[in-house]
């Protein structure tokens, strides 16, 4: 058995910066966001619409080159309301949603906002699968997924 009276706690830290230059597909998607456009691309083999745009189709393993501009309206496929504070995330309550653009074969993660509530707990009920959402754009857009601040109900 260990004699835990000798135990000593060590604190340490990693703080490493990384840099990468993205390729054309990710560039065009992010550049589209600057112009308030949500772009997708279509697989030449399975015709699957990918939003966000991707360099290749996972399913067919072929390059995707055909571009498509979506309306920007997305549908909630799944969501989770967060009631506690997490490092790097907005103050609670906030809603993380898996949303899908039009008839895309892929979905993506983003924040959902602008659903009115009195008690935070109501958000569980008021957020609905299948709900249509539209993007709320940042004032200053830099070509980042956060150029979309969050998605909000179309009729809000």
């Amino acid at each position, binding site marked *: 058995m260990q004699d835990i009276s000798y135990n000593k706690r*060590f604190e340490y830290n990693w703080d490493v910066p*990384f840099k990468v*230059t993205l390729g054309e597909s990710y560039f065009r998607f992010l550049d589209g966001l600057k112009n308030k456009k949500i772009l997708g691309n279509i697989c030449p083999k399975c015709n699957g619409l990918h939003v966000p745009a991707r360099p290749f189709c*996972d399913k067919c*393993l072929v*390059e995707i080159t055909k571009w498509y501009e979506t309306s920007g309206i997305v549908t909630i496929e799944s969501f989770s309301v967060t009631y506690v504070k997490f490092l790097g995330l907005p103050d609670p309550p906030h809603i993380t949603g898996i949303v899908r653009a039009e008839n895309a074969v892929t979905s993506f993660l983003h924040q959902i906002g602008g659903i009115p509530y009195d008690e935070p707990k109501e958000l569980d009920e008021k957020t609905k699968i299948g709900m249509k959402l539209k993007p709320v754009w940042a004032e200053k857009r830099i070509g980042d997924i956060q150029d979309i601040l969050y998605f909000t109900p179309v009729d809000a």
Partner: protein
Amino acid sequence: MKNKVAIVSCGIIKYEGQNELGMWNDEATFKVSKMALDNVGAEKDDLDFVVISTMDGLDGITISNGLLAPAAGAYNKSSVRIETTGVHCIFSAVADILSGNSNLVMVASSDTLEMDFGYVTNFNQDVYFRGPVGFNASQSYGMLAMDYLKKHNIDEKDYARIANKNYLAGAVNPYAHINKKYSTEEIMASPYVNWPLRSLEIGKISNGAVACLIASEEKAKELTDNPVWISGIGLTSSQYLGSWKELSDMKAIKKACKKASDMAGIKDLKKEIDLMEITAPFAPFELIAMESLGFCEEGKAVDMLNNGDTSIGGTLPVNLSGGGLCTNAPNSGGLFRVVQAVKQLNNELDGVNTENMEKALVHDSDMFIGAVGGVSHGVLMLEKGE
């Protein structure tokens, strides 16, 4: 293990400097994997298993399987990600094929980011003893280089000569990151980084991607007329917090090589091996590895170097790819060397003539060679055949 498992196709892009590739891990992985499939007219659906080799600290994301495995064709298929070297990945592919589970396996790896490699390799170390003194990979290279220098009374200029030999080879390799023919004088004039190593004697970090398709005998014969057979493979781990004597003696390489040779039925390495690719991120490691692998007596590798035996056109060319000084990719370096050896056996590289070369040895290691910290070494034996 004759005629059981073969490398049937390779995909590779030209290596560049850090963040000079202009694409992220997934795209680079896709490009080379697709290339490997296309080269032999295979489809994603022909794949049974996918092995990815990258490390979190070098990917800039943790547990990157989700991102990278599908890019190599793993969607709805079995896959693993191995956080060590290329030869370990090939081992995994070979095991799955020999078990009868798979006929065709994709092995892929990529490096696409810019990061502080020294810092990341400091994370490889424990946080009690070695982390706090800032110990990193480059320093471990310096220690081994010093050990060899003092043990064998070598001239520092010999280290510059090995570097020069590698730069000459890299200059004619279309896939190598560094294509500049640095002279021995230029190398000697470069500043010390970790004495006795100078900056041109340590590989700059490279970005690129590489994939190979590994197939069962039956599948190999169906897909290609130029299979390169995997005749032997050996892996060994060294000690962590081990004795310097044991580590500098490279016992782990010796054991890995013995396993691989035995499996390949190789009796006399010196006679039978035609060319070698050695993971040498710092110049003199080539000498140390050659001796540990048993190609010459201790302290004699420098004579082979100075005789030109290991150069282009020599009797035992080592690192015709330009080695770790010209392409130093921490994730994909091992597979890069495997692919280079395959291309050399197939005499596919324009800059060098490797006709009639039949057998190759590839040594691979995680990047902490030198390593006073635990290291994994892998040795792979390749054979040209029908």
